[in-house]
């Protein structure tokens, strides 16, 4: 994506504006309660917008459009099924239970409903997961940022054989570099002048001239034969490349500092109110792309005609419900049972970084209304995020890397200035998810660990200082983790795997805690630990058995579903054999039991 001066101006104004706004909000913060829960003063509309924008990270903005390019409207399930119904249920059933108890975190509510062991176990799970995930999000976002801004170092491959080009590109780290190809020496020279590569790989078969390295004016140069290429070959030869002008670490550092500053100063209030701006920018930018894209294609019916005329490739592109044996990763069974019944509930009801906003609502009415407003906004999201991916397909059906579909579309249809708005929308998505995790991680460690075990009777101003110290520690940890996260795919999988380990069991004990007064602390603890262990067992069996246990390569949805079911069973059985919690403890903690 090529940005002009107007685009850069918009981006700089946006970034500086966000930090200044966060600092302005932060001036009113005097206590831990202000910092973690915005002094319980947040209105429904701000929380609703914050909920929506926090759910959509920068990775999603690019990744969802890329997946929609490949699979179509089925990605809309993640909002229409995975958010709206659950947010309605949460608004009337779960959020009021949490809000009226005046807790700061979900583990704190679990402690009040069950016992201290359940609280600490849950807090440690979230407290360890969130800082690690923070680093991974930061790194993944920096990768996307570099792709969109065309900042990645360039590697030029010269070969007239496309298969050889692919082999070379796959033998090196595809995430860190952009590979550019040329099929002749002349084109290669022109490309090296235009794109300034850090190394050139040249096929010996191409031309005798390839042995003359002077023609590439000092750029490191490796000539090869097809037989030499292996996975270690790429890594070994990349060591000869010259230093790139822009390292991904710079992107990580800049984003970490910007987000860290306003979260440090403003706490949850800054997170939520910057999210409001980010929601407007993100939705505005994405809807611009939607309207521009469709208008330029000639209208909705023309758009649909182009897609449906692509035959077998797009036959399911306008279907939300796909067969169980679909070749896409979105069969209806996994979507309905895994996403709709477990993961979506776990996310909107049990995820600390999401629920914390509603806990900061100024009234019960605001807490409930925020989730309803969020649900209404969520209906729009697939139109803003998924449909542009399909529009990109209509424009250009030959994009090799689907993750570049959105960037390619923007480049093709958006005038200068509007590209800057879309890019600001991308930054908004990035910042909104990182700041949420950062603030929530600091809240959990301060409230459920530090306050509980180290200084139970400190004053509120003391917890403000502690919260800010944790914020600094976690942003530094995130930057540290992020710069070593070059094995991104495995780390991202690790984060998803860890999340699937405890999402199901955590949800199970929250649901039983709210709906069943017979659920006991011992039952919940056994259910939580048993469920997490069962998830680990399933993943271990899946990875180690000769024939994998699940028929999908990334069985997160199924692991979450089965661990949820097992946790429910364990909690119910153990609760029935242990003594019921005292009546006075249960009042106000169980639905319709005041």
């Amino acid at each position: 994506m090529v940005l002009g001066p107007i685009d850069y101006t918009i981006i700089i104004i946006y970034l500086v504006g966000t930090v200044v706004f966060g600092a302005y909000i932060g001036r009113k913060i005097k206590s831990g309660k202000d910092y973690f829960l915005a002094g319980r003063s947040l209105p429904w509309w701000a929380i609703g917008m914050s909920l929506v924008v926090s759910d959509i990270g920068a990775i999603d903005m690019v990744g969802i459009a890329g997946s929609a390019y490949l699979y179509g409207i089925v990605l809309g399930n993640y909002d229409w099924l995975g958010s709206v119904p659950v947010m309605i249920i949460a608004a009337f059933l779960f959020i009021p239970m949490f809000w009226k108890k005046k807790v700061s975190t979900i583990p704190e509510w679990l402690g009040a409903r069950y016992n201290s062991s359940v609280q600490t176990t849950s807090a440690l799970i979230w407290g360890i997961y969130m800082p690690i995930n923070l680093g991974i999000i930061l790194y993944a976002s920096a990768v996307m940022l570099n792709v969109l801004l065309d900042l990645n170092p360039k590697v030029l491959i010269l070969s007239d054989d496309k298969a050889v080009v692919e082999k070379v590109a796959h033998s090196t780290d595809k995430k860190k570099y952009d590979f550019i190809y040329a099929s002749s020496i002349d084109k290669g020279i022109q490309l090296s002048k235009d794109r300034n590569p850090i190394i050139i790989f040249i096929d010996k078969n191409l031309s005798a001239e390839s042995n003359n390295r002077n023609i590439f004016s000092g750029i490191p140069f490796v000539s090869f034969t097809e037989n030499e290429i292996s996975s270690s070959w790429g890594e070994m030869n990349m060591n000869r490349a010259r230093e790139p002008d822009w390292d991904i670490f710079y992107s990580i550092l800049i984003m970490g500092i910007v987000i860290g500053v306003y979260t440090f100063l403003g706490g949850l209030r800054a997170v939520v109110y910057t999210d409001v701006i980010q929601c407007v920018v993100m939705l505005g930018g994405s809807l611009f792309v939607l309207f521009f894209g469709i208008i330029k294609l000639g209208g909705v019916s023309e758009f649909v005609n182009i897609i449906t005329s692509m035959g077998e490739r797009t036959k399911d592109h306008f279907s939300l419900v796909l067969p169980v044996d679909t070749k896409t990763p979105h069969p209806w069974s996994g979507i309905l049972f895994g996403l709709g019944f477990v993961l979506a509930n776990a996310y909107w009801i049990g995820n600390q970084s999401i629920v914390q906003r509603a806990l900061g609502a100024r009234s019960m009415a605001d807490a409930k209304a925020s989730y309803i407003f969020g649900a209404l906004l969520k209906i729009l999201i697939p139109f803003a995020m998924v449909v542009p991916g399909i529009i990109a397909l209509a424009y250009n059906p030959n994009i090799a890397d689907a993750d570049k579909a959105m960037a390619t579309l923007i480049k093709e249809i958006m005038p200068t200035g509007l590209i800057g708005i879309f890019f600001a929308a991308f930054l908004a998505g990035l910042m909104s998810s990182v700041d949420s995790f950062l603030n929530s991680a600091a809240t959990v460690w301060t409230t459920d660990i530090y306050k509980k075990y180290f200084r139970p009777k400190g004053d509120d101003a003391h917890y403000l200082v502690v919260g800010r110290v944790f914020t600094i520690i976690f942003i530094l940890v995130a930057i540290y983790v992020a710069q070593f996260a070059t094995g991104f795919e495995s780390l991202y999988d690790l984060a998803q795997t860890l999340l699937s380990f405890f999402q199901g069991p955590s949800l199970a004990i929250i649901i039983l805690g709210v709906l069943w007064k017979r659920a006991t602390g011992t039952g919940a603890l056994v259910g939580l630990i048993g469920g997490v262990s069962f998830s680990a067992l399933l993943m271990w069996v899946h990875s180690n058995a000769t024939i994998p246990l699940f028929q999908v390569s990334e069985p997160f949805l199924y692991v979450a579903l089965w661990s949820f079911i097992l946790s429910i069973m364990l909690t119910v059985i153990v609760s029935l054999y242990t003594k019921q919690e005292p009546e006075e403890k249960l009042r106000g903690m169980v639905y319709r039991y005041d």
Partner: protein
Amino acid sequence: MIDILTIILSVSVSIADTISNLFRIPGQLMREILLSIDLHIAKSLFIIYFLSITYWVYKLPKSEVILNDKNSGKDINLRPFAISAMVLIVIIYLIF
């Protein structure tokens, strides 16, 4: 040392295979049942799920859906907004 590692590895693969085979029998059965469900029925399940939530919201007592806004002093009825959201979702699933 290598022998011990080899033994541990082969034993763990055997254990994983045994557990995997145990789980795979009911898993395969469930998969076959799900495969036999017609796509129209599957879509109906989605819509039944949405309609049941809509009905639940409709049946909630007034005390849970009508709340007093402390700032304006007015009562807000959240039910129409929640039902509208669900109706829109049903329409979307009927279209796609």
